[in-house]
């Protein structure tokens, strides 16, 4: 659906140039929710703004829906942009227009009839749950309501893609969750491709199918969220996940405990339905190994449950190795950490 080829963006004049993106390649499939995470200044906004050419790349190509945007003239680009919705961190609604008129804005650009506008806008107001606020001005709405207007406005022209630039970063945690749920609903209902950028792992974990980690203008790691989240490779990714888990110190203390040939700390990851099975207790029962739980999490990634345990096995070396082998055989992921 979206294809970025060798994308480079530099700001400023020769001599004092900032390279925001350097030779970046990215491919986003139709119907998926694709997350891009990175620290402030990593190039996230530049990246998403290149996808509808709000920012023109210095070099490289931007393909959306099979069209090379970088090759288009002004009029054609305007037409293509109508198929790409966008929502913003600060909502960017017209302060002089009511909720209704804001949502109708993209429809009026293409001279839609009054009756069609009325029908479409009412439908969208219901979708985002703002029907009773149609005649209010943005200044009379809460942040979450403003973002709902932003979403309705972005959907008015029936886009194929929705770009979200830190769409929840100005919202409190509860409102963030309700907006994310709305985005997930829309994604399912319309098979809409959603690209969202954020600096919060929580956002990625809640609704994304795949994620890319951006660092210093390049993508350092990407893949399905379950994979990247549970087995991060790059240091930047690990850092984001550590922030989310936020328990490094307690674990380090636990790991400093007794150590020796008869004890082994491992991280076990359960994914999907296995999360709720009693695989571990059955296995140690069979091998005669004892275990102490040092740390445990159970949560979901998008709608997939997962569990992650760090345990210390105690028993003979052979029995511990046997336990690990059996766990692997049953489809769990086991990593020896100490």
């Amino acid at each position, binding site marked *: 659906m979206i294809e970025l080829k060798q994308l480079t963006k530099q700001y400023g004049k020769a001599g004092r140039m900032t390279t925001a993106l350097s030779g970046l390649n990215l491919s986003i499939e139709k119907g998926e929710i694709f997350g891009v995470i990175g620290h402030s200044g990593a190039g996230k906004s530049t990246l998403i703004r290149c996808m509808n050419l*709000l920012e023109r790349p210095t070099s490289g190509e931007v393909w959306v829906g099979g069209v090379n945007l970088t090759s288009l003239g002004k009029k054609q680009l305007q037409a*293509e942009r*109508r198929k790409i919705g966008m929502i*913003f961190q600060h909502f*960017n*609604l017209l302060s002089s227009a009511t909720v209704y008129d804001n949502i109708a804005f993209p429809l009026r*650009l293409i001279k839609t009839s009054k009756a069609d506008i009325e029908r479409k806008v009412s439908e969208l107001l219901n979708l985002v749950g703002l029907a009773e606020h149609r005649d209010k001005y943005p200044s009379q709405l809460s942040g979450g309501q403003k973002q709902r207007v932003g979403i309705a406005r972005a959907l008015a022209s029936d886009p194929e893609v929705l770009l979200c630039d830190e769409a929840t970063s100005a919202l409190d945690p509860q409102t963030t969750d309700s907006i994310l749920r709305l985005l997930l609903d829309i994604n399912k209902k319309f098979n809409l491709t959603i690209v969202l950028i954020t600096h919060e792992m929580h956002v990625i974990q809640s609704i994304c199918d795949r994620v890319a980690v951006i660092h210093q203008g390049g993508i350092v790691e990407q893949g399905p969220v379950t994979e990247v989240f549970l087995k991060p490779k790059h240091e930047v990714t690990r850092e984001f996940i550590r922030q989310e888990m936020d328990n490094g110190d307690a674990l380090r203390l636990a790991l400093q405990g007794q150590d020796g040939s008869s004890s082994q700390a491992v991280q076990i990851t359960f994914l999907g339905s296995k999360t709720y099975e009693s695989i571990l207790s059955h296995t140690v029962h069979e091998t005669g190994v004892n275990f102490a739980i040092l740390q445990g999490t159970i949560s979901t990634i998008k709608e997939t449950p997962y569990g992650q345990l760090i345990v210390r096995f105690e028993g003979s070396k052979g029995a511990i190795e046997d336990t690990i082998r059996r766990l692997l055989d049953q489809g769990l992921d086991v990593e020896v950490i100490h």
Partner: protein
Amino acid sequence: MLGLDFSQVDWNEIGTATLDTLRMLGASALFSFIIGLPIGVLLYMAARSTSGFVRFGYSILSFIVNILRSVPFIILIVAMIPITKSIVGVSYGVLGTIPPLVVGAAPFFARLVETALNEVDKGVIEAAHAMGSSTSQIVWRVLLPEARPGLLAGMTITIVTLVSYTAMSGQVGGGGLGDLAIKYGYYRYETEIMILAVVLMIVLVQLLQMAGDRLVRHFTRK
């Protein structure tokens, strides 16, 4: 009371002068807005152009606007006499003062328009671009409606400034309340008429300012 005697005042003359002032104001404000608004939009757009050539055009236009704004109005009236004649046929009377009033006020208003447009949230314009708006759609559907309170405030300031300009136009026999005040008060020492004319101008300015403020408040949604 202070030895003033208002019984001798020719109310007809006051009435005519008031009407003349309103005519000069109405016509010059209308043309100043019609001419100043597009120049202001042009200034705003040109300053943001990616083309160096257009930005050079901006500096020139900006320079011309500055020159017109710095010429004292009284000099503008005199300097424009030939041009005024060729436009409206005469260089005196109500009609003869309108061209210099417009040339004096339009650049002033254009700057106020530019300032009001600069206040429009960049993010909203960006959102409009992202939705596929053309340049003219951005001007008509985003910039002007979003800047409406600022534009109305600019119009108010321009009209109030024009009231004092029309007072000066008495110098070319322009008529109106300012002319009356100078003719009677300064040349003939008939203080009563002068006081009346000045009071009427003060009331006029007050009314215009109040109406303007009220409009600005009505359209402010922030």
